[in-house]
């Protein structure tokens, strides 16, 4: 496939938008699986489905964003939320809430999900760990996905979540200074747009 698997817009759309590749009316390999059994029924070897679900869960525990309460989580992440998964570096200070994993996808590359990929490479047998189904070759690595509350049936990957509280710009180290002059950076050609 030569195009993006999904598109997420957090800031520029009319509210958060998450779109994923349409996989067709009948479930085809490469879609979202809610569990390993459903993955197996799609004709993928059980061993690969189990591995994918496991690695997706690892990535979910490590990467899912955390919010102070359920309502904020559901509003900002646009997905069903639950108490954050245990066994992670949650830090001190009470319970947090995270998006509930809605399923997993099989991925043929590791670029976006280093946690899941690393676990997959060390955690499965047979080295390369790929298998072919139809035209596509997948690595047996799984990625967690989260169903949109607003757009049912649309799933987004874990990287698409905007960092909780990011809009508050907290914790960023930009130094305060004193401006002595303003407006000398541009433009040289007033009235012309700069893009091309």
């Amino acid at each position: 496939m030569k195009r993006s698997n999904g598109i997420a817009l957090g800031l520029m759309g009319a509210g958060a938008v998450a779109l994923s590749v349409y996989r067709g009316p009948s479930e085809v390999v490469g879609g979202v699986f809610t569990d390993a059994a459903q993955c197996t029924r799609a004709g993928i070897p059980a061993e690969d489905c189990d591995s994918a679900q496991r690695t997706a869960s690892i990535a979910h525990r490590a990467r899912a964003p955390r919010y102070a309460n359920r309502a904020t989580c559901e509003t900002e992440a646009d997905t069903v939320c639950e108490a954050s998964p245990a066994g992670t570096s949650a830090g001190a200070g009470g319970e947090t809430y995270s998006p509930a994993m809605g399923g997993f996808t099989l991925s043929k590359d590791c670029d976006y999900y280093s946690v899941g990929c690393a676990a997959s490479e060390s955690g499965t047998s047979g080295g390369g760990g790929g298998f072919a189904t139809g035209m596509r070759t997948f690595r047996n690595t799984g990625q967690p996905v989260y169903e949109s509350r607003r757009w049912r049936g649309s799933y987004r990957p874990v990287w698409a979540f905007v960092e909780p509280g990011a809009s508050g710009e907290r914790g960023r180290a930009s130094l305060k200074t004193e401006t002595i002059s303003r407006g000398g950076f541009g433009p040289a050609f007033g009235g012309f747009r700069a893009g091309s």
Partner: protein
Amino acid sequence: MRRLAIPPRPDWRKTADRLGFRFAEMYGAPYWDETACFAFTLREIEHDIEDSTRELHALCLDLADRAARDGRLLTRLGVTAAFHDYVARSWRNRDLEPSLYGRFDLAYDGTGPAKMLEYNADTPTGLYETAVFQWAWLEELRRSGALPLDADQFNSAHEALVERFKAFSNRSLFHFVGAIDDVEDGGTIDYLLDCAAQAGHVGRKLHIDRVGLDARGRFTDEDDLVIDQMFKLHPWEWIFEAPFASHLPISGCRFVEPPWKAMLSTKAILPLLWEAHPGHPNLLPAFFADDPRAAALDAYVHKPLFSREGANVTLVQDGETVAIEGPYGAEGFVVQQAARLFSSPGGYAVLGSWVVGDAPCGLGVREDASPVTMNMSRFVPHAIIG
């Protein structure tokens, strides 16, 4: 490569609203045009466009590498002498000053190799409609059955951008500077800010006119915060002429695109690439205007070193002359052999082939009634079919 007339989605304007596409119409005319689409074969995409783009990108990096060590070459590229060191240092430091993106404009009609018309290395736009709206168009048409379910698109630009933004520091605010109130430039900035946020950055928009300076020569925003990292949708050749320019080397600010892109965002690369790689299948013969060999071209395009949206471009072909007026040209001109564009009753098509980081990752086709692509061109989506 075929142009297929297809019915537009009846509710596409509503979709445009939902997805934040605010410049689907510009200057009172349609810009997004889904009354047609371009269909490519996978081989055309992978062999003729993707591979050619990768090759052209490599040729450009090679030129930059030579120019960074050769002041005469920097001068021929149009880089002001005062900034030779600044630009060359940025090139040597490019592991820490990576490039985000660029767009090659290609002439291609399905026969023969794609030919580079120019390289928008510094301030390319047309990204959102390529990466997002075109992508969503394909998904809807696959879902409705208007296009085959196995139709694809050369377009992983969105994923590539989010991934690429992870190469930049997120220790402090990431400022996005430009004409943020312009519908098209502002839309591009909003989209890139969104991609940056998805990669973990905290971004902030700032109008180009509001950039400040502190006593230590650092650039500041409207809250008097130091700008450590600036995406600027504003060309380097303009910044080099601006009053704050002398503070660039001591500002400590990292720029996107980085200063070394100033070596490539000029039409001067066209004759210099042809000089270094004469006869290359993806290049058109090109010369500086004062080169006697320029006069030997009978069908040619006369372009200023720096210009945007076709301004000051003259096309001479088949005894006809098309001249576009504009404010550019003081720095000199190049002459490039005219290329055969894909033409149909819909107009002339130019392919915008995107590079994010160092990887080709997407295609946006613009169509224009004129063989010189200007800002009244229309964006026509594409699909890979068969």
